[in-house]
C-alpha cells in the first residue's frame, strides 16, 4: 500500500500529472476575483473566505477524473484490483494520494492567497484549520465520484454534476468556520461538524467506492 501511494505520488509529480494544476487554478481564481469585484478592501474582505473555499473546491474538482481514469485506460487498475490489497484500501490510498497532491498544497498556499484577497488576519488560522480538516473529505468524496464514472468515455461533466451536490455540506461548514472565526462567533461548532463529515466520509466512502469499482470492472 505504501508502494502504491509512492507510485501515485510519483506519477502526479512528474510531467503532466497535474500536481501543480490545483494550486495554479487556485492562484488564477484569487488573482482574477479582485479584477472582477474591484480592489477595494471593504468589498473583498467579507467574501474572501467564501471565494477561497469555492476556489479550493473547484481546484479539487478539476483533478478528480485523474484518480482512476488514467489507471483504467492503461489497464493498471485491473492489475491493482487483482492484487492482494483489498479494493477498499486501494480507494482510500488513491484518495490520500489525491489529497497529498491537491488538498495539502492548497492548505499550505491558502494564507498567501488569503493576503491577496485581504482576508482579515483573525480569520487566517481558521482558514488553514478548516482547509486542513475539510479537504480530505473533498478528496474522499471525489474518489467515490471518480470510481463511479471510471468506465465512461467522457465522464468529466457527469462527474462534476454527481460530485457537486455531495460537496455542499463540506463547503457550508468550511466557509462558515472562517466567517465565524473573523467575527469571533464560535468557529469551533462548524469546525467540529466539518471534522465529523470528514471522518464519516473516510470511514464509509471507501466501501462505497470499492463497491462501484467492482461493478465497473465486472
Amino acid at each position: 500500500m505504501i508502494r502504491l501511494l509512492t507510485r501515485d505520488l510519483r506519477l502526479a509529480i512528474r510531467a503532466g500529472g497535474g500536481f501543480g494544476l490545483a494550486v495554479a487554478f487556485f492562484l488564477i481564481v484569487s488573482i482574477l476575483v479582485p479584477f472582477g469585484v474591484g480592489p477595494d478592501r471593504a468589498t473583498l474582505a467579507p467574501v474572501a473566505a467564501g471565494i477561497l473555499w469555492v476556489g479550493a473546491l473547484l481546484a479539487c474538482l478539476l483533478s478528480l477524473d485523474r484518480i482512476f481514469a488514467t489507471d483504467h485506460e492503461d489497464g493498471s487498475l485491473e492489475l491493482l484490483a487483482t492484487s492482494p490489497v483489498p479494493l477498499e484500501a486501494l480507494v482510500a490510498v488513491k484518495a490520500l494520494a489525491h489529497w497529498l497532491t491537491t488538498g495539502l498544497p492548497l492548505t499550505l498556499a491558502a494564507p498567501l492567497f488569503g493576503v491577496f484577497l485581504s482576508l482579515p488576519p483573525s480569520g487566517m488560522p481558521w482558514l488553514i484549520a478548516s482547509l486542513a480538516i475539510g479537504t480530505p473529505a473533498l478528496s474522499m468524496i471525489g474518489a467515490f465520484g471518480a470510481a463511479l464514472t471510471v468506465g465512461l468515455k467522457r465522464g468529466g461533466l457527469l462527474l462534476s454534476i454527481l460530485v457537486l451536490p455531495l460537496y455542499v455540506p463540506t463547503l457550508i461548514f468550511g466557509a462558515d468556520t472562517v466567517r465565524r472565526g473573523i467575527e469571533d462567533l464560535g468557529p469551533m461548532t462548524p469546525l467540529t461538524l466539518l471534522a465529523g463529515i470528514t471522518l464519516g466520509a473516510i470511514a464509509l466512502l471507501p466501501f462505497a467506492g470499492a463497491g462501484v469499482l467492482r461493478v465497473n470492472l465486472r
Partner: protein
Amino acid sequence: MSFWEYANPRRFMGLSDRLMPPLFLLSGICLAVGLIWGFFFTPDDFRQGSTVKIIYLHVPSAMMAINVWIMMLVTSLVWLIRRHHVSVLAAKAAAPIGITMTLMALFTGAIWGQPMWGTFWAWDPRLTSFLILFLFYLGYVALWSAIEDPDTAADLTSILCLVGSVFALLSRYAVNFWNQGLHQGASLSLDAEENISDVFWFPLLVCITGFVLLFVALVLLRTRTEIRSRRLHAISLRERAA
C-alpha cells in the same frame, strides 16, 4: 402471494395492467375535485388574498418531491439486496417524475414568493435544500443515461442513490445552520397546535391524495414502458443473432 413474486416481469405486467386504469381514474377524480374545490370554493386568506390557493399545487408537489426520493432509496436497496429487477426499473421510472415534482414545487413557490416575500428566490434553507435535491435527481438520471449496460447502470445508480441520500440529509441540516429561514414552518404537522384552517385543509388533503395516486399510476406506466423496451431490446438482439 408476496412482493417477491413481482420480480417476475410477467406477473408485474399482469397486476399493473389491472391496477392502472382505476388508479388513473381515481387520481383524476381526486385532482379535479381537490383543485376545483380549492381554487373556486374556498375563501381568500385575510392577509395573503387569493395567492394562498397555490398551496394546492405547492404543498403536494413538495411532499411528493421528497417522497419520490425515499421511494427510490427503498427500491434501490431492494435491488442491491435481492436483485429484484422490477424494483430498480421502478426507481429509474420514478426519477423523472421526482424532477418534475421538485421543479413544480420550486416554480409554484417562486410564483407565490414574488407577491408575498417580494422576491422570486431567496437563499432560504428549504428552498436551497430543494435546489440541492434537484441536483441529486439530475445526477441520478444523467448517470442512468450515460451507462449502456443495464445491470451496471442499475448497480451504480443504486449506490449513488444510497450515498446521495446520506448527503442530501446532511445538506438539509447544513443549510439550516447556514442561513435563517424565510419559509414558514410546517403547517400540516399532526401534533402542532396551530395548523391551517379546516377550510383549506380538506381540499388540500384531497389534492395530496390525488398527487400520490397519480404518482403511483405514472410509475407503473413508466415501469411498464421500461420492461417493454427491455423486451424489445432482447428481441432485436435475438434476431440479430439468428
